[in-house]
């Protein structure tokens, strides 16, 4: 009988869900309190908090990310920055401590409208390729697992498929290039 390697048992999605559940318990009440103080709604709090979780998770994936403060304090800092971005007129009302002031929101976090359009177009016509590319570049699945997950017989065919997907998405982007003004290099 083949024994599964432990790392095949826990998927990145399961790991993230577990992390997000923990953070909902430990970090959401504080963020919600802050948003309510700023006269925001529960919906605002959920929006800001979920964006903050995405940014926190992304930062935590970087090898250089060393968090000396608590996760909760860091997420609160991100949430404050997101609030300031959303409601610029509140800038003076939000006090940032030393840690919070040092936090940055990725420049590309709010995608250009054109990128959003492209993404929704591709989500309709090239979903499988987006899934495969996302699994390869972001979930960092090795080719062998990628092959298993997407039903390829060999690692080699998964590799070829990855390039075919890059080509397919690239060509969709090229087709749309004339419609989208910001296509420049």
């Amino acid at each position: 009988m083949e024994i599964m390697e432990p790392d095949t048992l826990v998927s990145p999605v399961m790991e993230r869900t577990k992390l997000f559940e923990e953070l909902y318990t430990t970090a959401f009440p504080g963020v919600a309190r802050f948003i309510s103080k700023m006269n925001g709604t529960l919906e605002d709090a959920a929006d800001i908090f979920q964006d903050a979780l995405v940014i926190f998770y992304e930062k935590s994936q970087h090898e250089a990310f060393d968090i000396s403060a608590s996760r909760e304090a860091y997420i609160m800092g991100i949430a404050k920055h997101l609030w300031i971005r959303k409601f610029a007129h509140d800038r003076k009302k939000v006090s940032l401590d030393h840690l919070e002031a040092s936090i940055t929101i990725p420049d590309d976090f709010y995608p250009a409208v054109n990128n959003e359009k492209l993404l929704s177009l591709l989500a309709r016509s090239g979903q499988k390729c987006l899934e495969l590319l996302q699994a390869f570049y972001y979930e960092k699945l090795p080719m062998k697992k990628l092959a298993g997950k997407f039903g390829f017989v060999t690692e080699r065919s998964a590799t070829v498929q990855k390039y075919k997907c890059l080509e397919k998405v690239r060509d969709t982007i090229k087709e749309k290039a004339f419609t989208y003004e910001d296509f420049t290099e």
Partner: protein
Amino acid sequence: MRTSLNDIALAERYIAGKLSPEDALVFQARLLTEPLLRWNVAALRKVYIVVKGYHRKKIREEAAAVHRARFNDPAHAAFQQQIYQLFQ
């Protein structure tokens, strides 16, 4: 692999800065003389941006699912109450 896919593999390594200095020079020279390759590389850069956006969207949806579960589960009634009170 067919030539067009080989060029993608090459462009990917060029963008990631993983080509040897010699190969990078050769590739840069091709970029100067082959407009189609230039266009393809520009579009490939955009592919990576789109995949990143897709990844973020997926994670955002996972976070939203945790939120829905948390606010619909009677086992978390005390937590829900604590939050609702903030927004009364």
